[in-house]
């Protein structure tokens, strides 16, 4: 078995113990990207010389010598981010972004840049200036977005950890579609410097994508700049919301998530309580309006008339539509944000975590990203955002955990949300859920990685 098939913490431990040479591990990662990436288009750029320099200068940190992929949303000292697009509305330049510094200081080696949905504006990953990333579980399916490449890279075991960004579910959707664990941290807790919206966003955070919660804890600790210590999820009070929107999920997703909630309850000796959170559709719309408004910060009509024609027509149309959003709706969104945050304070007096499906249906086809739900056919973007926006609107942390395989052997995922600053509790709960499932779903490999591993072993 290649050291690349170890967990993130396994790689770090093996390097620290002298059992694995980090230079050889870097070479193996680059070779594996050459071998497997053409099928999934997860990594859009490698830079072996820069990676080698980073490794040569790496301090003896907790990720010393471990290869990591970083989403095309973060500048690196040798490369400006492209945001998956032919052009960004904001100026960009190479630089030391927060995630870069965090990884460097932890001793990690950035081995490549991960593909992403164009301009971060989609939950599917099927639109990008680099071409779509593909799901390692089925390369004709969406990998999720907007952190499509980081997720596909980890799922295909090109690397054991990747850094994404989540402004409206963009870590959690690809984690769910690709069968990974993805953490959307509490707002402001993870490295954000250098992002082209760092000064204006009230929704976007960096976050880790890994196979399991322990690896997210390790990579998250680097991004947070503080140790995310393991605790105890005993007696976990799990809240579930039963309303028309949260119930509108594919039957197989509902069954898997309900089974997972019961397994989590049993594993922690906790309880499940039905709770209510009114006006969730309005909270979702408020988050959409706020992130769209913030993304236009400082953009003039003249600038909109000068968009690069290589930007996709869908993105051009959406960007121009954003300019027409009424100010009254943005102001109302701020009120709804406050209202929802206050309601969550009360709700988190009753329960420790909220649980609901991350995605309402398994990954849709790349060519036609539509999902069938009890309420009818929807675009995946319309359906997905309903389960993700709450965390971004209010600032609370949220984690997506794989809990099964559905139609076409495609992953299903449960999402857990907790009160502000309780990211560690989410990791504890995710680990409890892994134990309850005998780690079956976090250790499941997609066909692309499974076939390659089996071929290497014979």
């Amino acid at each position: 078995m290649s050291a690349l098939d170890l967990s993130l913490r396994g790689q770090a431990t093996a390097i620290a113990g002298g059992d694995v040479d980090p230079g050889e591990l870097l070479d193996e990662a680059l070779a594996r990207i050459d071998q497997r990436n053409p099928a999934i288009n997860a990594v859009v750029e490698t830079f072996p010389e820069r990676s080698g320099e980073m490794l040569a200068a790496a301090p003896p940190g907790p990720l010393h010598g471990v290869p990591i992929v970083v989403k095309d949303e973060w500048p690196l000292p040798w490369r400006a981010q492209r945001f998956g697009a032919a052009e960004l509305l904001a100026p960009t330049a190479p630089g030391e972004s927060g995630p870069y510094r965090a990884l460097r200081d932890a001793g990690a080696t950035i081995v490549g840049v991960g593909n992403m949905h164009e301009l971060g504006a989609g939950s599917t990953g099927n639109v990008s200036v680099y071409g779509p990333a593909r799901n390692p579980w089925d390369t004709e399916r969406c990998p999720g977005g907007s952190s499509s490449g980081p997720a596909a890279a980890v799922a295909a075991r090109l690397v054991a950890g990747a850094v994404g960004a989540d402004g409206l579910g963009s870590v959690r959707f690809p984690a769910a579609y690709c069968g990974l664990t993805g953490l959307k941290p509490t707002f402001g807790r993870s490295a954000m410097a250098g992002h082209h919206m760092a000064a204006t966003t009230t929704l976007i955070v960096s976050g880790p994508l890994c196979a399991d919660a322990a690896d997210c804890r390790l990579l998250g600790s680097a991004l947070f700049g503080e140790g995310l210590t393991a605790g105890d999820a005993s007696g976990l009070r799990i809240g579930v919301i039963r309303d028309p929107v949260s119930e509108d999920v594919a039957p197989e997703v509902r069954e898997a998530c309900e089974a997972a909630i019961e397994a989590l309850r049993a594993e922690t000796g906790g309880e499940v309580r039905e709770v209510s959170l009114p006006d969730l559709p309005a909270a979702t719309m408020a988050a959409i309006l706020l992130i769209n408004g913030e993304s236009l910060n400082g953009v003039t009509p003249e600038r909109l008339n000068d968009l690069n024609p290589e930007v996709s027509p869908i993105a051009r149309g959406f960007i121009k539509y954003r300019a027409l959003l009424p100010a009254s709706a943005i102001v109302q969104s701020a009120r709804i944000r406050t209202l929802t945050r206050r309601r969550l304070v009360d709700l988190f007096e009753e329960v420790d975590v909220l649980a609901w499906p991350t995605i309402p249906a398994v990954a849709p086809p790349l060519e036609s990203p539509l999902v069938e739900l009890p309420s009818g056919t929807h675009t995946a973007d319309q359906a997905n955002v309903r389960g993700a926006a709450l965390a971004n609107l209010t600032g609370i942390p949220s984690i997506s955990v794989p809990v099964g395989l559905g139609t076409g052997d495609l992953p299903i995922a449960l999402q857990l949300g907790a009160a502000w600053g309780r990211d560690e509790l989410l990791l504890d709960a995710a680990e409890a859920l892994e134990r309850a499932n005998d780690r079956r779903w976090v250790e499941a490999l997609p066909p692309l990685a499974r076939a390659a591993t089996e071929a290497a072993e014979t």
Partner: protein
Amino acid sequence: MEASERAEEFIPAGLASLGIEADEVELAVMNAAHGMFWPAILDLLSLDTVEVVPERNPDLSQAPQ
């Protein structure tokens, strides 16, 4: 009036007022976006929030004070 009909008026008028140009494909995307978002925006605007005092510069890393 249906969302599609409203889009026929709202989008060209909005673009013209701001001096933003759009080609046919962009207009089609905008019409689709309007049909998708506008009903939800109207629902959002119809919520009675008059008694909600929005947080000033909310610290989203913490619970509201």
